[in-house]
């Protein structure tokens, strides 16, 4: 395959560094998950699109009335015996969680997979304060022992193969090299068991929080969230404020969509409904439950034309279908959330640092498969990406201009028919010009990988004129 020279855009540059091995892992896993999602939804529901629209409407309604549902959720959680905290940003969330742990002398933590804890970089913060937080989701555990970053929001090590994982295990003292997946899993399981039993606290996220009943819903395939809450006496759940759904009955819609969209399964192996700490007479479970609601820029997004992004239920279907993600893989996005959801959410969550990630919305061919075909809550992702390009242009003109050819001259031409026709005729000179050597950047970027068709500017107009004057 002949390589195309790379230009300025960071995501495009990153793609040139992706090995064939990583590309094939990410591409095939993404394609398989996309196909399974589509097959299962079509098999199990008469009108999957309608179901997605209903889910989107429930989420939109919840966000529109968050001022009602958030206090309702708090009241329900407290009624169930949970303690509720609010954190305006990552810094506050980290301090709140640290304080809860510190007051109870908790030094050893088991963690169930949670993107929002990644968002606030909780593990590093706790480690710096002498608290060990072990990731118990196998993928996240491998990311942790490698000092790596997740490259997908549901399948964090989609960029790794079993040989690399076997090497990581060997390096981490988890037995001699063995790349048999079952052996790897058994070793991780054995290692985890002791951690679960010794843990002072379990930290989780939540896939949904039901306002009406205060139920925390967690879906996993490994049962690790259940183990994380079995032995420890303390449970802390960190939850984005957008995770609220109004009532238990809404879970029927969301659980059916979430799991099919995420992994192409009908249901995950484990679905937990947690209604507060252990009640009198219950034999196991934490005696204390804390829920930390995180804002971290969400209420600001809620007040903008980008608010639909808060409907997201973190299934990853938009990553799996995205042709750019399939080429680039997750690390190209330089943020916790990759793919189409990340290209919208990450620059917005960056707040005042928007400009640093303003190139991400441009790393998209606007194919619309993410929002149109995949998203279980019908987020108009490509519209949001386009809106963010407009925002980047308005707020950071010089920076964003780097990503695309300047359009001012085009506008002048396209609004002046006489000039336009002149340019079309003059453009015929292109046919006689060695295009591969052209000094104009967009042209050479085109011709690096493709030929240009014959320039026939004005031909149609001549045909039209001739025909109508005969």
């Amino acid at each position, binding site marked *: 395959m002949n390589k195309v020279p790379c230009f300025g*855009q960071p995501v495009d540059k990153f793609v040139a560094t992706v090995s064939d091995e990583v590309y094939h892992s990410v591409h095939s896993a993404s394609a398989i998950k996309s196909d399974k999602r589509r097959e299962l939804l079509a098999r199990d529901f008469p009108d999957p699109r309608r179901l997605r629209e209903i889910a989107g409407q429930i989420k939109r309604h919840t966000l529109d009335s968050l001022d009602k549902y958030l206090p309702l959720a708090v009241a329900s959680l407290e009624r169930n015996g949970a303690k509720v905290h609010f954190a305006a940003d990552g810094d506050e969330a980290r301090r709140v969680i640290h304080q809860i742990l510190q007051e109870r002398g908790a030094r050893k933590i088991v963690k169930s997979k949670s993107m929002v804890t990644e968002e606030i970089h909780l593990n590093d913060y706790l480690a710096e304060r002498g608290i060990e937080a072990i990731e118990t989701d196998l993928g996240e555990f491998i990311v942790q022992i490698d000092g790596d970053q997740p490259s997908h929001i549901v399948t964090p090590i989609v960029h790794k193969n079993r040989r690399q994982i076997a090497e990581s295990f060997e390096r981490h003292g988890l037995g001699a090299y063995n790349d048999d997946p079952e052996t790897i899993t058994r070793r991780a399981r054995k290692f985890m068991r002791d951690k679960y039993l010794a843990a002072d606290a379990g930290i989780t996220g939540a896939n949904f929080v039901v306002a009406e009943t205060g139920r925390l819903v967690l879906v996993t395939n490994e049962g690790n969230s259940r183990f994380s809450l079995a032995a420890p006496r303390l449970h802390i759940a960190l939850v984005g404020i957008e995770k609220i759904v109004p009532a238990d009955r809404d879970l029927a819609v969301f659980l059916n969509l979430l799991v099919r969209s995420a992994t192409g399964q009908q249901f995950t192996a484990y679905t937990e409904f947690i209604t507060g700490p252990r009640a009198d007479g219950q034999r196991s479970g934490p005696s204390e439950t804390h829920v930390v609601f995180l804002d971290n820029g969400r209420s600001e997004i809620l007040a903008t034309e980008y608010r639909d992004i808060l409907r997201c239920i973190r299934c990853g279907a938009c990553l799996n*279908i995205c*042709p*750019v993600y399939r080429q680039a893989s997750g690390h190209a996005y330089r943020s916790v959330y990759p793919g189409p959801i990340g290209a919208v959410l990450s620059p917005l969550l960056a707040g005042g640092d928007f400009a640093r990630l303003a190139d991400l919305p441009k790393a998209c*061919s606007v*194919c619309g498969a993410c929002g149109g075909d995949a998203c279980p809550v019908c987020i108009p992702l490509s519209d949001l990406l386009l809106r963010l390009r407009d925002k980047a242009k308005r707020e950071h003109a010089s920076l964003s201009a780097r990503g695309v050819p300047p*359009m001012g001259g085009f506008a002048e031409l*396209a609004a002046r028919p006489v000039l336009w026709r002149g340019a079309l005729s003059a453009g015929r000179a292109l046919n006689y010009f060695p295009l591969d050597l052209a000094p104009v950047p967009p042209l050479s970027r085109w011709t690096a990988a493709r030929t*240009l068709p014959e320039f026939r500017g004005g031909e149609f107009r001549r045909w039209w004129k001739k025909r109508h004057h005969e």
Partner: protein
Amino acid sequence: MIVPAERAVGKQVQLMATCLYDAFFDDVARATVQVLEYLGCEVVFPEGQTCCGQPAFNAGDWVVARKVVRHAAATFSGSGPIVVPSGSCAAMLFHGAALAFEHEPDWPAVRELGARTWEVLDFIVSGLGVRKWEGECRKKIAFHSSCHLRGTGTPAAARLLLGSLRGLEIVEHAEPEQCCGFGGTFSVSFPHISANMGRLKLENIRAAEPDLLVAADMSCLMHLRGLAEKLGNPLPVKHAIQVLRDALSAEGKIK
């Protein structure tokens, strides 16, 4: 995709030839005229036309995009259908413009423009009520359903018309929902990703062994054809309207 619920119909149509066809693909614009006239339409070509504004819109320069859309609105005055042989230009006028003009005072005029705009195959089937195409085309074709056709009537219209030609077989290819990688300015801003996407699309298409690649958007075909040629293995491409026109020509139904 915001597709107008009700659209202007009738046989007095204005042709939007598109900037790309104005510059490179005159035969597609010509085929559009020939087919529409064969179907009894009276075609007008407003000579002041330039572009739909899509390049600037996708590039995030909405000030410029609005300027170009306003020029289009002024050029295509009237109330009859505007027919364009490009799904993405049509989508710019009924979907893109809806985003770019939502806070603009002249949004009603622009909405009116969108509600008159049809992609040509969609117009033939849903606007003119044609359900079958007479003629023959003894070819295996791959149909690339361009991304901007998502949610519009064009893919079904194209399959209906092409599929009714005698001897024509549509061969399906893998990952049909995947973008070809063109994406307008994306193709030059992200040349590496764009070319990789295109090569993957070509691999999937070639695996189906078609004689011809057909689409309803020349931009995708310009990209795919250009990649194939650069790789030293050219792939014949045609706009669907050219296939329909050629079938008419072969039987002497048009000159």
